[in-house]
């Protein structure tokens, strides 16, 4: 293993500035030693040399929404297999969600995830549950959980239906200075729903989930956040209305941020025609108009981060009818390429802007010292080939589960190298 790496002739995105710097990146002993034009370090055999002509080099990505399924569902994913999948996707820092079995609602369980996450090459931070067992009835010991390493609080997968309880959680969360990451769903509207309620759910005879499911709860939580002064983060936006509401709330000074998944940016509900259950996700992939509003929300800065919402499921849980299939798609390995293809190739977003939404943007929201390439900082870096395109194939998937909505898609932005803590942890085959 090389302790020194030099990457030559790269378009270097530092995670903050939109414009790239054309030059070399020198990594030594796990740190960024130098970023400059034409760095000369002699020709020692002990240095790994990478020619990055025509390539993008950017900070290791920060994915703030991942399901690792460990503990409890190790047949779908483990902390180790999830980390390997992340590295294949250029992700070197991630926040994992607490809907495991048992739910991450006790300090010892956070400790388990933190311990197991060490030495995987990925910095893994757990989010702790807001309510015990994600049942939406009693608040967890948020203070003890924060001390044990909770990077945020979330009942992801579930919404807290009880508004008063949500309000109390918001008020108390201020004391611990950790964001609340909110999965928004109004059960009266989402109950028994499978896909976006609209033209395609109608013609396919699949039960729909109205936009109102998201919008009502987001509206409620904006009101509660305004009243409580809590720091809230709405995860996986899917509707046009939610983008508009959050934009307005930000203008009014509510302490709110939000993210969107790569699959909600990439697909609209016309994909359902195939009855392919890989597209059964929550919140549902919505109409072309909603997708367009999400893209605009990214471009105008309303949306603060792009996430994978990596949700592994077994083939047997997906190769069934729409009604029986589990919700979710994996996404770590396609996070960059899917968002680059839909935003930079499709809609002309500057690559540097996307880079910050995948790196320093989420890092800042979570208070992580990550997501930038700077002299003297930990060397987490990714080299990406944005020139050609590649086809996503089931057999190339690194994750333990293969339920990817992107299988068969042509994407641009293949990950070539992932460097974590100064070491090459992934190299494309």
């Amino acid at each position, binding site marked *: 293993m090389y302790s020194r790496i030099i990457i030559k002739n790269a378009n270097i995105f530092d995670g903050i500035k939109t414009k790239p710097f054309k030059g070399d990146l020198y990594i030594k002993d796990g740190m960024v030693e130098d970023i400059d034009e034409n760095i000369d370090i002699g020709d020692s055999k002990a240095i790994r040399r990478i020619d990055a002509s025509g390539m993008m080099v950017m900070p290791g990505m920060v994915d703030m929404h991942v399901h690792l399924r460990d503990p409890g569902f190790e047949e779908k994913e483990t902390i180790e297999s999830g980390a390997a999948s992340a590295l294949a996707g250029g992700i070197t820092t991630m926040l994992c969600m607490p809907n495991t079995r048992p739910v991450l609602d006790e300090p010892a369980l956070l400790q388990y995830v933190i311990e197991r996450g060490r030495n995987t090459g990925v910095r893994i931070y757990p989010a702790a549950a807001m309510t015990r067992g994600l049942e939406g009835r009693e608040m967890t010991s948020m203070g003890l959980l924060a001390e044990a390493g909770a990077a945020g609080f979330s009942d992801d997968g579930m919404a807290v239906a009880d508004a008063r309880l949500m309000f109390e959680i918001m008020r108390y969360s201020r004391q611990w200075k950790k964001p609340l990451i909110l999965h928004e769903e109004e059960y009266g509207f989402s109950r*028994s729903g499978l896909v976006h*309620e609209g033209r395609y759910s*109608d013609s396919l*005879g*699949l*039960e729909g989930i109205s936009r109102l499911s998201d919008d009502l709860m987001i509206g409620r939580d904006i009101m509660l956040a305004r009243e409580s002064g809590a720091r809230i983060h709405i995860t996986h936006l899917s509707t046009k209305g939610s983008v508009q509401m959050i934009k307005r709330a930000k203008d009014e000074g509510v302490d709110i941020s939000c993210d969107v998944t790569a699959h909600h940016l990439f697909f609209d509900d016309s994909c359902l025609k195939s009855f392919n259950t890989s597209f059964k996700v929550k919140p549902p992939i919505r109409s072309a108009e909603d997708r367009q509003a999400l893209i605009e929300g990214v471009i105008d800065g309303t949306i603060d981060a792009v996430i994978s919402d990596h949700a592994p499921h077994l083939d047997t849980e997906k190769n*069934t*009818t*729409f009604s029986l*299939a589990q919700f979710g798609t994996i996404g770590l390995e396609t996070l960059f390429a899917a968002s680059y293809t839909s935003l930079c190739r499709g809609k002309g977003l500057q690559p540097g802007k996307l880079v910050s939404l995948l790196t320093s943007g989420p890092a800042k929201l979570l208070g992580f010292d990550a997501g930038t390439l700077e002299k003297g900082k930990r060397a987490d870096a990714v080299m990406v080939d944005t020139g050609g395109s590649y086809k996503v194939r089931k057999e190339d998937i690194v994750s333990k589960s293969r339920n990817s909505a992107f299988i068969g898609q042509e994407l641009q932005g293949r990950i070539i190298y992932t460097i974590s803590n100064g070491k090459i942890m992934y190299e494309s085959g």
Partner: protein
Amino acid sequence: MTMLSKKSLLNIADLSPEEVMQVMETADSFAHISRREIKKVPTLMGKTVVNLFFEPSTRTRTSFEVAAKRLSADMINFTASSSSLAKGESIMDTVRTILAMQVDLLVVRHSHSGAVKMVDDMIDIPVINAGDGKHQHPTQALLDLFTIKGRFGRLKGLKIAIAGDFLNSRVARSDIMLFEQMGMEVRLVAPSMLLPEDYSCYRVENSLEDVIEDTDILYMLRMQFERQDRKLYPSVEEYRRFLSLDSSRIRRMKKGAAVMHPGPVNRGIEITDEVMGDMKSPYDNVIIEDQVTSGVAVRMALLYHILG
């Protein structure tokens, strides 16, 4: 003999208007066979057709069985309850088992939308969708069209009002598509909670009163109070008042107008006892039995075009 352009019939949209007319013509000639004393021709001798029903059904299953037997195909019934085959793997395992017996065509019904397509995607032999969830029931639409054509001698410009629960109806999804494609004027009669969200492209009325005097055909959908995911419609009494066909309403229909229903009729809900009659309706507008008769002819035609 013209084969259909697709190997299977999953969705009514799989058929072009020309193919629909071809099926109608063939069904016409098969209808004659069913009126003979010896109701059997050797057309599909040596072919094996399997009725694979994951959802209980008597009428559709029997109709396919009669159709296949009149064409001399061997017909096997395989009925499995959806609950004992809850997992997708088991659907696939069942299909694999049946395929290993070297059969020629599957007629599949399942209570989940998309399940029949899932079966079709897995296998090379043709599949006929006998109803999948709330999605499609293409053979019902074809037999409805055949019945209408038989009664009116034409299709273009006919006014049809379809009434009832569109949200949960696979029959409606297939019928609307086919009737519009064949140039009929389709109106829907339903209250808001029984309509899918995005039906703004159709002419929608809220009560039978709005269409009763002006329609050539009144097509009543089956109202399944017990099958609704949510309790949508307030009460049977309310349904009767605004949406059921009683004798005073049927008497106000145009001369020669027809009443249809995919069956089985919930007496006293969609159509009153009085209108239905005992063995036969006292009103010759009611052509529900003609639909059943048409079903055999149309299914014979489809088996012939797919397997012949």
